[in-house]
């Protein structure tokens, strides 16, 4: 096929953005779900849940877009990666079902409120952990024969993937704490600041261990980061991470209501960039590059036309719906 226009970089950007939006949006959403489990009373639980009730559905839609975007732009990667993480994906989906219905059920089903409270909190935690495991398994790479995953369905289970699972629990909770500081007041906000600092410690330990472990796992990754002159260009990433971490720690203790969330987002951006630097241009790590996994040009072109029109529109009206629900939440707003 003639390569007049190469759509792969554009799709890499779009998909990368979609996945990052998912991580960010459902990240704070799931994080709020986990912190919910630590709320002391019904009133604060109501406040916490109402802070995300009108938007969680839209946040989760980015997961669908990420999955479908991967299928559409890089189908080979979809067909190899998803079977390789069969059980983490299963567990994530079932947990998301539980936490999703808990929004409606909890408030209408007074007799089983505790059950749905648990469903919401544990569902959020289990879904997060499963996503972290998927990330870890992805970085480690999969056994591939031809165009198919050829390993076993439990290959994903390694110390490394468990580590990334736990790290993400802290990561999403940090985002969740940032959101709650932004959206709530008083006791709930104060608790979020305390939890935020604990999570930040967990996140930094996670980032640190993963950063040390990954180069040992793959020579290519080690070379990418530590070979001359890369080390010079890439040094700002860890330096910036340290700076943002320090900033986040400070603002969690300050009076600022927006900066902790900004700090948490900053840490996610840097971690995301770090992983991208390690793996680029692989989309099925160590087997297929983005170009090798890409769908046909016609497919990418057909979808690109609509995406370039629709994505800005989506961002606009999604932004509008966030704007409608701006400001602080109260326990009695939203579900009553």
């Amino acid at each position, binding site marked *: 096929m003639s390569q007049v226009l190469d759509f792969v970089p554009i799709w890499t950007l779009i998909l990368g953005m979609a996945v990052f939006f998912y991580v960010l949006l459902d990240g704070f959403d799931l994080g709020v779900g986990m912190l919910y489990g630590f709320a002391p009373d019904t009133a604060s639980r109501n406040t916490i849940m109402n802070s995300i*009730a009108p938007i969680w559905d839209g946040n989760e839609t980015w997961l669908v877009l990420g999955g479908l975007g991967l299928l559409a732009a890089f189908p080979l990667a979809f067909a190899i990666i998803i079977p390789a993480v069969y059980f983490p994906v299963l567990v994530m989906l079932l947990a998301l079902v539980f936490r999703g219905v808990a929004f409606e059920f909890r408030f209408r089903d007074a007799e089983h409120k505790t059950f749905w409270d648990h469903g919401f909190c544990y569902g959020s935690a289990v879904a997060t952990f499963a996503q972290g495991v998927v990330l870890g398994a992805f970085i480690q790479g999969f056994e591939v024969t031809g165009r198919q995953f050829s390993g076993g369905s439990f290959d994903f289970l390694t110390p490394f993937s468990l580590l990334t699972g736990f790290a993400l629990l802290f990561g999403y909770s940090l985002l969740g704490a940032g959101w709650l500081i932004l959206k709530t007041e008083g006791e709930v906000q104060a608790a979020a600041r305390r939890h935020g600092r604990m999570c930040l410690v967990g996140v930094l330990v996670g980032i640190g261990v993963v950063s040390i472990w990954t180069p040992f796992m793959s020579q290519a990754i080690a070379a990418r980061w530590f070979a001359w002159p890369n080390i010079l260009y890439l040094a700002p990433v860890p330096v910036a991470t340290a700076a943002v971490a320090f900033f986040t720690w400070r603002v969690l203790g300050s009076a600022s209501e927006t900066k902790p969330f900004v700090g948490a987002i900053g840490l996610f951006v840097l971690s995301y960039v770090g992983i991208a630097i390690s793996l680029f241009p692989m989309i099925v790590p160590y087997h297929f590059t983005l170009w090798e996994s890409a769908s046909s040009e016609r497919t990418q072109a057909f979808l690109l036309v609509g995406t370039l029109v629709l994505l800005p529109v989506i961002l606009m009206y999604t932004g509008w719906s966030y704007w409608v629900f701006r400001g602080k939440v109260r326990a009695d707003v939203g579900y*009553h």
Partner: protein
Amino acid sequence: MDLDPAFLSRLQFAWVIGWHILLPAITVGLAAYIAMLEGLNFFTGKDIYLRISTFWIKIFSIAFGMGVVTGVVMPFQFGTNWSRFSDATANVLSPLFAYEGLTAFFLEAAFLGVLLFGRQLVPRWAHFVAALMVALGTLLSSFWILSANSWMQTPAGYEIIDGRFFPTDWFKVVFNPSFPYRLAHTVVAFFVTTGFVVMGVGAYLMRRGRSVEEGRTMLSMTLWLLTVLVPLQMFIGDQHGLNTRDHQPAKLAAIEARWETARQVPLTLFAIPDDKAERNLFAIDLPWLGSLVLTHELDGEVKGLKDFPADQRPPVAIPFFAFRAMVGCGIVMLGLVLVGGWLRWRGRLDASPAFLAITQIAAPIGFVAVIAGWITTEVGRQPWTVYGLLRTADSVTPSLTGFDVMLSLIGYAAVYLIIYPAGLFLMLRIVRKGPAIAAEIDVEIEGGRPGAPVRAGAVELREGEVR
């Protein structure tokens, strides 16, 4: 026991989609109904429409929430269990799925929040627009997903290179031969399903003697709609059948349990099809009618299953019975609509306890028909995922063991068997409570962002109460 990952994966897909489709079957119709009620309230200012809308929005929010989470499960099935199907068809099908996400899911999700929680936070027109957008989203979603499904039934606009499908003509891919019929048949089915639910709930409210006015409005509005849609649906179904005859003759032969190709074939009302012996047991046949129904000619030729190699035939009994269940539901629906129309003409719509009771019992009939129709068309497509081109057996993920799929199937079974009964229970509870009476609705929409100005909607509502 030997666990076959392909068979278990099919069971799993049938399980997750079977439960999922029940939710669009109600939310597509309800979204449009709510948008209409919001519109009626916006343009006429009558608060009865607001009360009915507020009532259905509660039920909608539960159904929609369940629809979202069970829907998120679906695209991942293509990866987890059907990765070879994904690899083979992604170049053609994936944009359709992706467009569903881009045009429908975000639209629904963003405006749903405003529809559910924003009545006091946005102007009245914006709330109405939110209702419209949610309804539009559900229809766009139906459009894309049924286009993809139809392509699997009647593929077009593609070429095959090295066993994988590549697009050649997007218009032909999207508007493949069975798509217009399937889209019309399914969307009308969703509206009819919702119609019978709304009518049944209306009848219940009238029988119970509380919120009678709301119940009567629900019943009356919906009966008009169904008077048009039920006969229309039968016409569309017939057209869809002709389309199936042209493009998927083996499926049609299985639906009708026809083994021999022949003219002047009978219509088999009942039989026990025997796949091995290639014949029907205990058949009850009506002469000539088969040709008349399937070809619209008494002398028309209908292809039989023996024209197809045994390994290219669908199982016969399942589509045969499922189709009869669907048509049976359709006939009952038509009967109810005719009786209702007659009672209305005689001015006795609310004076017939028997009609109200039967209408109430018939509330879930659409779901039965939708599931039966879905089974007919999907089992009838077997043994293919892409009709005539890609076998189901060659679509499944090769790395999966039977044990893997059994575990996941148990997981899906357990979770769905918890959330569906719980969801149904909660929806029935809302029905039992009924629409808020006029004095309550004020409290109902109370509670906005602190300091938010009281919007025109709430003010007019209070005026409405005084009236």
